[in-house]
């Protein structure tokens, strides 16, 4: 049974831009003469009309999301970011470095079959197949703030299960101090992994990590859906992590492996620029990124440039009550 609760701040169905119209917006902008000559030349739009007559192809297929069954979230006081923005403004360099590229370039991504392997220092190593992702644990909706390290933020209704439940099922040994996460490596499907230019010079696969007590915190969510449906590829289908008190890059997408380890694992952005991105990456308005302030953020909501609000950033993204104890006595300026 699909239980849907509608918060007062939620968008009504009719307010949502038609998905195809949204996915076509770059074409619309191109036709208006917006982008540079380079991308116009690269675009096949100019020749699409004639070749389509022969190939019979139409607009690129949109990834099919399924409705999920889940326990609905309680009301949330802050306005949700509209679904089209949650699914159209993504940092997922595996599908290109520009914010709209993941939505454009990931629609053919194959999520079934899928294997999520839990291994390492555990008594019960296990592998979850595609169907297991949705059936192994009861799914619940959680509305979380998402704060990107680039100083923009969203409010997203995720659906998933507690990472803690998964950890308990794996039964970690006493040597398990950290969890090391890994994203799928498949350059045939992920253009950013195939080309350094497309992928922003990152060494793939993308890897992330948590301390085991962080992973056991009830807020850490293994996420399989958003806005009532399974995740679209640009948001990390079929399964991703969401750790709402940390900057968005910690919430690794399209996970194929979780390994329990004794030593602090390497993490992708830390490897790339350790002075700018730490292992902990807790949202902290008191510790600036070396190149920009983290004291405030722009909340992405509906509307054009005049309706984007800058709001103060909260310590631990507003989840200090639930996670502050994890870092008691730690110098957060040093362990950023």
């Amino acid at each position, binding site marked *: 049974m699909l239980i849907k609760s509608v918060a007062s701040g939620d968008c009504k169905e009719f307010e949502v831009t038609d998905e195809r119209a949204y996915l076509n*917006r*770059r074409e*619309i*902008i191109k036709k*208006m*003469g*917006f982008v*540079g000559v380079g991308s116009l030349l690269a675009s096949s739009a100019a020749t699409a009309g004639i070749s389509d007559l022969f190939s019979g192809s139409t607009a690129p297929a949109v990834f099919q999301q399924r409705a999920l069954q889940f326990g609905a979230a309680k009301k949330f006081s802050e306005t949700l970011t509209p679904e*089209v*923005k949650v699914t*159209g*403004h*993504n940092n997922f*360099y595996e599908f290109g*470095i520009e*914010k*709209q590229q993941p939505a454009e370039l990931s629609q053919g991504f194959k999520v079934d079959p899928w294997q999520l392997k839990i291994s390492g220092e555990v008594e019960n190593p296990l592998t979850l197949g595609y169907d297991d992702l949705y059936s192994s644990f009861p799914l619940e909706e959680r509305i979380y703030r998402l704060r990107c390290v*680039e100083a*923009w933020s969203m409010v997203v209704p995720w659906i998933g299960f507690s990472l803690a439940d998964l950890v308990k099922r794996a039964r970690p040994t006493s040597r398990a101090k950290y969890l090391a996460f890994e994203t799928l490596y498949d350059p045939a499907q992920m253009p950013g992994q195939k080309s*350094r*230019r497309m992928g*922003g*010079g*990152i060494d793939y696969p993308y890897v992330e990590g948590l301390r085991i007590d962080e992973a056991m915190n009830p807020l850490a969510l293994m996420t399989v859906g958003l806005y009532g449906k399974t995740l679209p590829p640009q948001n990390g289908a079929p399964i991703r992590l969401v750790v709402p008190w940390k900057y968005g890059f910690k919430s690794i997408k399209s996970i194929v492996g979780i390994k329990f380890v004794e030593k602090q694992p390497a993490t992708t952005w830390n490897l*790339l*620029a350790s002075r700018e991105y730490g292992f902990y990456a807790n949202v902290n308005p008191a510790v*600036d990124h070396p*190149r*920009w*302030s983290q*004291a*405030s953020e*722009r909340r*992405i909501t*509906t*509307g*054009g*440039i*005049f309706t*984007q*609000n*800058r709001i103060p950033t909260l310590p631990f993204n507003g989840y200090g009550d639930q996670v502050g104890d994890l870092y008691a006595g730690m110098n957060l300026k040093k362990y950023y």
Partner: protein
Amino acid sequence: MAINIAKQWLPRIKVLVHLAALYPLINLYYAAIQDQLGGDPVEAVIHFTGIGALNLLVIGLLLTPVAQRFQMGFLIQFRRMIGLYAFVYALCHMLNFLFFEVQLNLQLFVDEVFERPYITVGMTAFLLLIALAATSTKKLRQKMKDRWQTLHNFIYVIVLLVVIHFYWSVKSDIVEPLTYVTLFFILMAFRHKKLRRWADKLLSRL
């Protein structure tokens, strides 16, 4: 072989240049207000006007070498116009940051300009560009005599600063900024004699 165009065509080409420079800007803000610029219209307008300004600066620096190489003297008459449009785009870029990114929080604006080296560099380039735009009239040019050329030679410094500003601002995707670094060196290579002369003069003073 010189390539010349009939005099009566010049004003018409100028109208086309005006349209080509203004049309994308009008479209940009229309789409931004209508929420048709993707997930984050603020980031979109900042990037578009920034890259636009840099593109216009590069075009402006291309005019002289192209005019010399192909003896297309009339191109020189477009330098001021292109330069002023580079200034307009840079102004929009800065105002986008002020109005839509920091949202008129002047304290934050000042802090960011002084604390973030890449913004400091960008703002320095912008201030220099203001000086060039403000002295771009014929009257002032005649009044300032030699000093005018000295001041306007700063355009090379400005483009260098803008290229650094761009390179410094990105997270990890350095291919596009590096393309502009390369372009800058090509544009400077066209002027190697002039640069050599300045270098010699500078060294002889030491």
